[in-house]
């Protein structure tokens, strides 16, 4: 049986109550909006790219504990990373959530979300900020919604 404390780990609770990098970047070079219409989660992700490297990253918005913590930890993890590193992390993170990967492989703090895979209805909460990141990196202007994104997430519902 899926365990609640596996979902709401201390680190996640901490980040949901005190999200890091929770601010607007005025001179952002890229931004994107994410929306999960099922739960009403909404966030805007701001990035400043210097060349290929993410020199600053932050977010604003409102959401559940999982999506807020995920966005917060995303910003912490990706500051200073290159575009390619970010994309690779997303893939690994996504595999972890959909049960295709294993915790601990180069994920660092992101591994606290391993418990989410036991809660299929919550996978979208954890991936919202990452889908939004992808959209910001590719410069896609349309807001990301979890309802049109990823068939794998859909299947996990």
């Amino acid at each position, binding site marked *: 049986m899926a365990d*609640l404390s596996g*979902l*709401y780990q201390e680190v996640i*609770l901490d980040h949901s109550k005190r999200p890091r990098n929770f601010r607007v970047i005025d001179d952002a070079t890229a931004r994107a909006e994410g929306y999960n219409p099922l*739960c*009403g989660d909404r966030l805007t992700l701001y990035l400043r790219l210097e060349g290929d490297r993410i020199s600053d990253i932050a977010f604003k918005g409102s959401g*559940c*504990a999982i999506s*807020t913590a995920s966005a917060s930890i995303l910003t912490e993890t990706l500051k200073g990373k290159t575009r390619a590193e970010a994309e690779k992390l997303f893939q690994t993170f996504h595999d972890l959530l959909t049960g295709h990967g294993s915790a601990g492989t180069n994920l660092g703090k992101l591994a606290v979300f391993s418990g989410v895979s036991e809660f299929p209805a*919550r996978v979208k909460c954890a991936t919202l900020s990452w889908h939004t990141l992808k959209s910001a990196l590719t410069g896609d202007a349309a807001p990301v919604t979890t309802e049109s994104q990823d068939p794998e997430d859909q299947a996990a519902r």
Partner: protein
Amino acid sequence: MATAVTQEVLGRVEPPVRDAQAFDVERVRRDFPILQQQVHGKPLVYLDNAATSQKPLAVIDAERDFYLRDCANIHRGVHELSERATHQYEEVRRKVQRLLNAREAHEIVFLRGTTEALNLVANTFGRKVLKPGDEVVITAMEHHSNIVPWQILRDENGIVLKVAPINDAGELIWEEYEKLLGPRTRLVAVAHVSNVLGTINPLKRIAQAAHVWNIPVLVDGAQAAPHLPVDVQDLDCDFYTFSSHKIFGPTGVGALYGRTRWLEALPPYQGGGDMIRSVSFEKTIYNALPYKFEAGTPNIGATIGLGAAIDYVTALGYESMGRYEHDLLAYGTKRLTEIPGLRIIGMAHEKASVISFVMEGIHPHDIGTILDHEGVAIRTGHHCAEPLMHRFGVPATARASLAFYNTRDEIERLVAAVKKAKELLG
């Protein structure tokens, strides 16, 4: 403001305990085998009845019996099975007629559910009656299915959609509502009971005001039919619709009541078999009411299940069911209100069976997950009523929705689970 309303409501609906005890909930619960199970190791507390209600054995048996003994297509065969199926299917039409107190059985159209019924009216009324600039009045508390079909018409045909505002308790502001009705209004569409707020709208008053201008009234009764007796003649509405699956019947079928002269005036919705009298490539003559609106093979098995559901609720009786639910609603409202930081969205004077709430610092989605782990099933999200979420300034709510098989013990389980969520995340 919110506190004052709470006190007022609680003062008004303080439970009539003696009457409530007359309802034998334990006996009723035995009719619903699904309720006797454990979820995450705890006895299931099913409080998502506004999304779909559970089915009594009588309904499951009726549908099963149809497939075991009588399965055939209707209105077509000369053979015995087809006649049996047709007879049973048409018998359900008369049951719906009696349930809604319609004048005629042909005023009852079977469709897939409330959504399809609302789309049928929007589509056919839109084609036949509405011209650019004509106005349709809805309310701020409508479900998406009573918003989007009108927006489609607005965007394609240039009609004007007017939205009646509501107050902080979740009630229509009558003075504002009246002002929206006028010579350009062609139709008013309104929920009988709000799926988020539980508000019971003043349908008779609406119909009276609308009919002064000869405006027909379309009622979304999806959340009302499972809880309130409906009399379309007394309400004096022109269209009324509900879904089987919310009134303890199977999914996939619902009914639309339409006043005869309206159903006669409107064009068909879909073309196909059963809705025609004769077809040639030059000309097709449509079938009589209600078959004009029933193209193709319907969900016969589910319709027969709906018949059993109507028998079931009729035997229980809306009066005793309603009294019991009202007691439970008042009790649940009281117990939840006692939790610090919890705010109930929707405190209308006239209210049925729905308790939507938000909690300070905890997102509804997290509440839903934690409650589920306590065996308590509720719905979280915008409940297909996003504009209403904006009206109350919340991204989503948690919603406990009651049925007559719920108990005070289950309310206590809900309260304990909410407290646990608070402990964990607050």
